[in-house]
C-alpha cells in the first residue's frame, strides 16, 4: 500500500473549485476588451446602430441584453448534457426567444414609452448573433456558473460600446443627456447670422452611428493591437 491511498485527502471529495479562478476571470474580462463582441467579432451591429440615438432607451436595451444573455447561457448550460445535438440550435432559439418575449412583456408593463421607442429591436435580440453564439460556443461546453460569467462578460462588453456611442450621439445630436440639457441653451445659434452652436444632425442618423462605431473599433483595435489574419 502506498501512502497516497492511506492519506485521508483521497477519501475526501475533490477540492472545491475556486469561485473566481483564472478561467472564471477570463470568462468575464476577455469579452470586455480583448475579445469584445462588437469591436473584435463585429457582432450585434444592427441594434448597436439602431438604438443608440438616446442614452435612455440604450440603457434599457443593454439591461435587456445582459439579462437575456446571462439567462440563456445558464439555461443552455444546465441542459447541455440533455440536449440532442441535432436539434440543439432549435432548442437554444426556443429558450432565447422565450426569454426575449418575457423581457418584452416586462418592458411593456413597466416602461411602456421606452419599449415603444425600442420598437422591434427588443424582439430582434433573438437574432442577435452574440446570444446564440455564446450559447453554442461556450454554454454547451461549460458549467452554469462559468457560462453565467461568460454571458455577463459578453453582454457588458456589448453594453459599454453601445453606451459610449449613445452618449456621443445624444450630446452631439441633441445637446442633451438622458433628456437633460447638457449644452447651455445660451450657446445656441439663434439665426442664420448668429455664429452660435448648432446640433450635429448627422449624429441622429444611422450614418452617424456607423462613423462613431468605426472610429471606436479602430481606436479599440489600435490599443489592443488586434489585426485581422491574412
Amino acid at each position, binding site marked *: 500500500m502506498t501512502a497516497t491511498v492511506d492519506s485521508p485527502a483521497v477519501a475526501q471529495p475533490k477540492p472545491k473549485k475556486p469561485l473566481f479562478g483564472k478561467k472564471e476571470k477570463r470568462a468575464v474580462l476577455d469579452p470586455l476588451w480583448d475579445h469584445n463582441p462588437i469591436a473584435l467579432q463585429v457582432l450585434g451591429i444592427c441594434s448597436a446602430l*439602431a438604438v443608440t440615438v438616446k442614452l435612455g432607451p440604450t440603457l434599457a436595451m443593454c439591461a435587456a441584453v445582459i439579462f437575456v444573455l446571462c439567462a440563456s447561457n445558464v439555461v443552455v448550460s444546465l441542459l447541455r448534457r*440533455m*440536449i*440532442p*445535438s*441535432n*436539434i440543439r440550435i*432549435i*432548442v437554444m432559439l*426556443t*429558450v432565447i426567444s*422565450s426569454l426575449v*418575449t*418575457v423581457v418584452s*412583456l*416586462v418592458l*411593456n*408593463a*413597466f416602461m*411602456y414609452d421606452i419599449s*415603444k421607442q425600442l*420598437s*422591434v*429591436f427588443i424582439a430582434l435580440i433573438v437574432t442577435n448573433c452574440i446570444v446564440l453564439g455564446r450559447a453554442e460556443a461556450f454554454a454547451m461546453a461549460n458549467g452554469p456558473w462559468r457560462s453565467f460569467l461568460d454571458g455577463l462578460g459578453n453582454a457588458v462588453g456589448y453594453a459599454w460600446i453601445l453606451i459610449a456611442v449613445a452618449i456621443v450621439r445624444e450630446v452631439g445630436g441633441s445637446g442633451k443627456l438622458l*433628456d437633460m440639457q447638457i449644452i447651455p441653451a445660451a450657446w445656441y445659434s439663434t439665426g442664420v447670422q448668429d455664429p452660435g452652436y448648432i446640433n450635429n444632425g448627422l449624429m441622429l442618423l*444611422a450614418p452617424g452611428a456607423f462613423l462613431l462605431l468605426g472610429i471606436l473599433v479602430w481606436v479599440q483595435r489600435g490599443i489592443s493591437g488586434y489585426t485581422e489574419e491574412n
Partner: protein
Amino acid sequence: MDKNSNSYVVLFAVVVCVVCSAALSVTFNGLSDLIKANQKFDIQKNVLKACRLWDPVNEADKPREELEQLYATRIEQMLIDRKTAEPLTGKSDAELAKIRKAQSKINKFTERDYLDVYTAKDASGKVVAYCLPTYAYGLWSWLSGFIALGPDVDEVLGITYYDDGETPGLGGEVNNLGWQETWRGKKIFDDSGELVSIKVVKGGASPDVPEHVAHGVDGLSGATITGDGVTRDLKDNLTAYLPYLERLR
C-alpha cells in the same frame, strides 16, 4: 435512453416547448392588466396630443395622473351613426364596448355602421377640436392614429400615429413629432367645400403648387409606400366621416 434516438429527440422537443409556453403564459397573464392599462393611457395621451391639449415636446414631464385627469375632464368620446351622423345614445358601457369590438373588425371606415369621435373642450367648455381615429395600411402593417380638426372642421390641428409595424427609420418615422408638426394648419376641404383630404407628397410639398400649400405635406424619405397608404386611407376615413363633418360645418 439514447440521446440521438428519434423518440428522445421528439420527447425533448415537446418538453422544451411545453415548459417555455407555460412560462410565457404565466408571465403574460401576470402582466396583461398592466399592459392593457398602458395601451389605454397611450391612446389617451395621443388624443390629448392631437387636440393640442398636451404638448409632448415642451411638457414631457407631466405626471400620468395629471394627464388622465385632463383626459377625463376635457375629452368626450362617443359613437356616431356613420350615415345619419347621429350620436348613439342610451347604451350601457358594456354594449358600447361590444359594438366597438364588432366595428373594429371592419377595416374600411366607409363600410362601418358606427364610428368613434372624440371632442375636446377647453377649460370653459367650448369645443376646441374634433378628433377622429384614422387607420392606414403602410408597407407592412396597419398604422393607428388620430387626426384632430379645429372648430372650423377644416383646419388640421394635429395628427398622431401611435402604433405601427413599419421599418424603423423609414416608414416608422410617421411617429416623428417634427413631421407630424408639418400637418398643422393644412386644410381637408378645398374652397368649393369639396373634401380633398391631405396628400403626403413624395419628394416634398412644393410651395409653388397651390394644392400642396393647402393640402400637402412632405413625404418621408424611404417611405413612399407608407406615405401613399396614409394619403389613400386618410381620404377613405374622412369620406366615411363626411356626413358628420358636413353637419358640424
